[in-house]
Structures are given as C-alpha cells and as structure tokens.
C-alpha cells in the first residue's frame, strides 16, 4: 500500500480514537467514584455539541466574527452547561438510586439519554435535521502524496492530548484528584478521612460531562455536521472501550478507545470483500478480548469481598 494512503488511514484512526477515548474516560471516571455506568453519557455529548452550536448562532447574531473567540466561547458554554447537567444527573438520578441494584442506574440513565436525545430532536429548532457545524479551525492543508494533512486535524489531536494529560495531572497531582481517587478506592474510609463524598461525586460527574462536551465540540469540528443521534453510537463505543481497557483505569479507557478505532480501521483496510463488515469485526474482537481478559486489558485491582 502507498505510504500516503497508509498515513491517511492512521490519521483517520487517530481522530476516531481520540473521540472514543475522551468518551471512555468519562465512563471510567463515573465508574471509579460510584461504581455505576452512566449510559446517558453519549447523549450528554450530543447536548454539549448542540449547546456549542446554539452559542455560535447566538454570537453570530451579536455580530462577533473572530473564529478563535467564537470557539473559546462555544467550548466554555458547552463545557460549563454539561458540567452542570452532569451534576444534576448525579444529584437527582444517580445518587438516589445508590441502594438499588446497579442495573437500575444503568436503565435510568439510559432512559435519561432517550429523554435528552428526544428533547434535542423535538425542541431544538429543526432538531431532527442534521445541522452544519462551523469549521472554525484554520483549514490549511498539505497534500503529501495520497495523504491530505490538515491543520485542523492536527490542532484537534493536540488539544485532545492536552486535555487527557490535564486530566491525568488533575487526578494524580492535585488534592482534588487525591480525593477523587480516595473515594474511588473506598468510599467509607474516604468519608472518615473527612472527604466530602457528595461534593467529590458531583465534581467527578461535572468533570466527566465536561469532557463529553469537549468531545462533542470536537466531533462537530471534525465532521462539520452534528445530529441528535451522534451520542448514541459514541456512547456505546465509548462504553465498550472503557470496558475492554479495564474499568476504573484512565489508561485503560484511552487504550480501549484507540484500540477500538484501530480495529475499525484495520477492518476496513484488511477485509477485502466489504468494508461494511468492519463493525462486525471490531465487536467480535471485543468479545474475544473479554474472553481472554475478563476484567479488561489493564486489570482492575479488585479484591472480592467474601
């Protein structure tokens, strides 16, 4: 295969992987602090993308015209709004169900996802249509043989890496991160050490949901189109990625995200008869990985209480 073409595939895979990884990190964070799966995560991403789009439209009406300023405002609005939404979800839907079976949380957040998705469709103006998302990043590109290297893709990848590094720093190097990790490890001990459990849970949900908003904006910038259904698929894939990586491990989530994107890309390139089988291939490998490593690639440190 042509080297340029190969580079193009790698680039496609990296962009997909970055988005999957960002979503997967959110799942892992929530699972860490509360041992719950919050399935509305993908739809929070959708709402985040639409919030960003709405603020863009608002700015346009105000007559602002600087791409960078618009981008910053969109990101801030989307991330803050989703952080609040995340906290509200944690406070009013997830925490009240703590004593109920874990499956209930899964179902209630799933239904919430439906509510969010349907609300975007019904209440955002013409929400059922695919919406154009502005291309705010510089669109310069270099043609290297078959490979079209675009500046905006490079910027997005860099931003994604920075965000992940930032999260990593936050979790491992700050007091807040220490508290989050403490709660994740053992809620009761953390409480007795004077950590405000509820506050930490809320902060974590805010963090994860903000990440989803970031991923949503990135998704919009990458595809230049958003629709009310984007979160559904990204949510499921992000969840699978978090699981194959190993729940509770942020590295696992990142690994899982890129692995899944890699599988899809490899599926397209390698399967000669039909690229359509790429998802069949990717999910089959996921199942095989689960059979091989039942608690994910990076094993969760759990001790079974007997």
């Amino acid at each position, binding site marked *: 295969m042509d080297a340029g073409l190969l580079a193009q595939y790698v680039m*496609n895979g990296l962009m997909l992987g970055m988005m999957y990884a960002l979503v997967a990190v959110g799942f892992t964070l929530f699972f860490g602090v509360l041992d719950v799966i919050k399935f509305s995560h993908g739809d929070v991403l959708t709402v985040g993308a639409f919030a960003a789009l709405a603020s863009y439209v608002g700015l346009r009406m105000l007559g602002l015209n600087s791409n960078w300023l618009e981008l910053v405002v969109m990101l801030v609005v989307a991330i803050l709004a989703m952080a609040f939404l995340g906290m509200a979800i944690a406070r009013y839907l997830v925490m009240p169900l703590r004593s109920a079976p874990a499956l209930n949380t899964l179902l209630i957040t799933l239904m919430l996802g439906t509510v969010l998705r349907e609300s975007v*469709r019904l209440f955002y103006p013409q929400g059922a249509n695919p919406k*154009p998302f502005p291309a705010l990043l510089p669109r310069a590109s270099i043609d290297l043989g078959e490979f079209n290297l675009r500046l905006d*893709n490079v910027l997005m990848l860099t931003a994604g890496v920075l965000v992940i590094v930032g999260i990593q720093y936050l979790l491992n190097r700050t007091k807040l991160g220490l508290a989050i990790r403490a709660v994740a490890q053992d809620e009761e001990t953390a409480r007795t050490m004077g950590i405000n459990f509820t506050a930490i849970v809320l902060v974590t949900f805010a963090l994860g949901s903000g990440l989803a908003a970031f991923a949503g904006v990135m998704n919009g910038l990458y595809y230049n189109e958003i*629709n009310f259904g984007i979160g559904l698929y990204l949510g499921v894939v992000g969840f699978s990625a978090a699981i194959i990586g190993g729940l509770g491990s942020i590295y696992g989530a990142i690994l899982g995200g890129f692995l899944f994107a890699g599988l899809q890309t490899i599926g397209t390139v390698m399967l000669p008869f039909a690229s359509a089988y790429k998802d069949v291939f990717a999910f089959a490998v996921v199942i095989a990985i689960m059979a091989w490593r039942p608690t994910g690639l990076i094993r969760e440190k759990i001790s079974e209480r007997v």
Partner: protein
Amino acid sequence: MSTTPKFAALIAALVLGVAAGAADAKDKVKVGFIGPLTGGVSVNGLGGRNSADLAVRLRNADPKSKYEYEMVVLDDECKPNVAVQVATKMAADKDIIAGATHYCSVTAIATVDTYHKFGFPVIVWGAVLPDITYRNKYDEVHRVNGTMINQNDANAELVSKLGYKTVAVIHDTTDYGKGHNEYFSKALAKIGQAKIVGTFGVTADQQDFTAELTKIKALNPDVIYFGGLTPIGVRIRSQMDKLGIKAAFDGTSGIVSDAYIQGLGPLAEGTLAFREGAPTEKLPGGKFFMEKYSAQKYDNPPEAYGPFAYAAMDMILDTIEKVGPDRKKVIADLANVKDRDSIVGKITFDDHGQNTVPVITKYVVQDGKFVEWDDSEYASGKRKLPGQK
C-alpha cells in the same frame, strides 16, 4: 420540564378538536397518512404530513364536500419493521377507508403485502423504488410519484454528457440504495462513456465514512455517485472535503430536501440531484399549493415530496366523494384513473397503479438552492463543476 406546557396544549387541542368535530352534522370519514415523523428523514415526513393535512383541511372547509374528514397519522420511522406494524394497524382499522403512505422505499416495499392482505387502498406519495408497484400486481397499491428508473437514466445521461470518465458509487444497503445502484449502473453502462471504478455499500445510520472515502480517494474518480437519503448524504459530502477529494458529488432524489443544503452550507454548492416531476413552482398547481401551505403556518416546509402527498390525499378524498366511504369501491375507482387533474399535473395510473411521470428535473445546488440544471450557471458555462470538461 419544558414538555409540560406543550403537552397541556396538545391535550387541549385534542379535546377542542373532538368537540368541534362533534358539532358538525356531516358524516365522519377517516383517511390515513403514513410517513417518517421521527428519525433522520423526519423533515420529509413532516412536510408530507402537513401537505396531506392541508388537502384534508381544504376539503373540510369546502361546503360542497359530502363528508367530514379526519386524517389518522402514523409514523413509520423509515424502518421496515415499524412500517409493517403501523400499516397493519391502519389497514386493520375498518373505519379508515384509504391512505397516503410512505416516503421511504424500504417501508413501502415492506408493507405492500400487508395492504393487499387487508384490502386497504393506498397511494404512495414519495417512495421511488420500482418494485413497490411492479413486483406484484396488487389492486390496492398506487403511486403518484415516479420511480427511480427514469431519474437514474437522466442522471447517467448528464454525467456522460459532462464528459466524466470514472465514477465511484456509494449506496446505502437498503433496497432503496441497492435499487439506485442497480439502475444507475445499468443506465451508465448503456451509454458506455463513463465506467464505475468502485462500489461501496454503507449502512443507513453510519457516521464515519473516512475509511470508505480514503479507498475512493485512491481510486481517484471524477464523480462520486450517492444513492441514499439526506442524513448520510450530508456526512459523506462533508467528509469528502475533509479528505481533500475533489470529485463532483452526484446524488438522487433522496437528497432533494432543504435539510441537505442546511446541513452543508457552502459545501453543498455544485451537488447534482434528480427528481421525478417538475419543481414545485413550475407545477400546474404549484403556486396555489404554496400559497395555501404558507397560509396554514406549519412548522416545516413541504419539502420536495409535499406536493405529491397533497395530490395523493386529494385524490383519495375525490374518490371517496365520488363513490362513498367504501374500500372496495375506492379500489375499483382508482383502477380507472386517467388524465386526472392534480397540482402535480395530469395523473394516469397504469395497470400496476403507477403514475407515469414523464418529466425528470435535473437539479444542481447553486447559491444555497436547488436550481434546475438548465437554468443554472453551471449549464451555461459560467461556473464549472469539479472536473467538468
């Protein structure tokens, strides 16, 4: 929650509607409408519903009409399974006399057997797959719009005329996309100028096409032909740009909707598309239709197939006025439709209930609008499509 006031309003409206209906002395007759009201192509469904609704409203406002009509609306979600379910529901309800049904070919082809089983007369208002009327010879099934065969002939002809040599085909893997692929390939082969260098089947809800498009990029075609509906059409066109693919984008009737242009903005420029029938403003009753439609202040525009939905519903109402609310008589009467006037022009059903629509409109997107090809600056040579000779 912001849903509450809407619900309250909805319920109030329903109660009022029923109360208003009760006060009237005319006999009530139910007719049906099925289209995709939710999901990716819901704009077309809503446009069709509004147009059919318009036909019913105008009829009810007409003092000369013999009956008071009520339109039962069901949502097929553009999914064959749901369509079979709602079609069963509608056809099984003996009070509903006839229906204007389906925008999506996948749903229309799945339900024809159901309509036949229950003896329920329908007029298809938007689906273009030939098999819907031609696979079987069911007396119950009719169609006011044309089939995809003619539009693909016109498509292949234009592509060849513009001097393009290589075409890559992307189609969705439903019967709709496969049909387009089949008829377009045939038509192109018949002319024999351009050849197809690659064919890619994609699922109708796919998000990322970079992998397929990278393969296409390596093939370096002059044209990418797309057989599918608006949602993935928008995605494919914008991802083509991401990968720096310069080929012309050539679509079908499935992307002729305002949503396509809204979804792409300036990127939509130069997209080709084809549709049976004349454009709404050039239809015999186009002006009348647009005036009445905007007077009702619907939330959505009628979209490309709205006039057909109106014509289908209007024909059903005409027939019921003529022979009374009886399914068998309606079917018998619809068997003899010849040169019947309608807003989309004269309608004639052949022995399969298919209206012969001779005109195919060629469209190109110019300055954010679907413009007729012959009137466009692309045809006059003022602008050029990518790779146009």
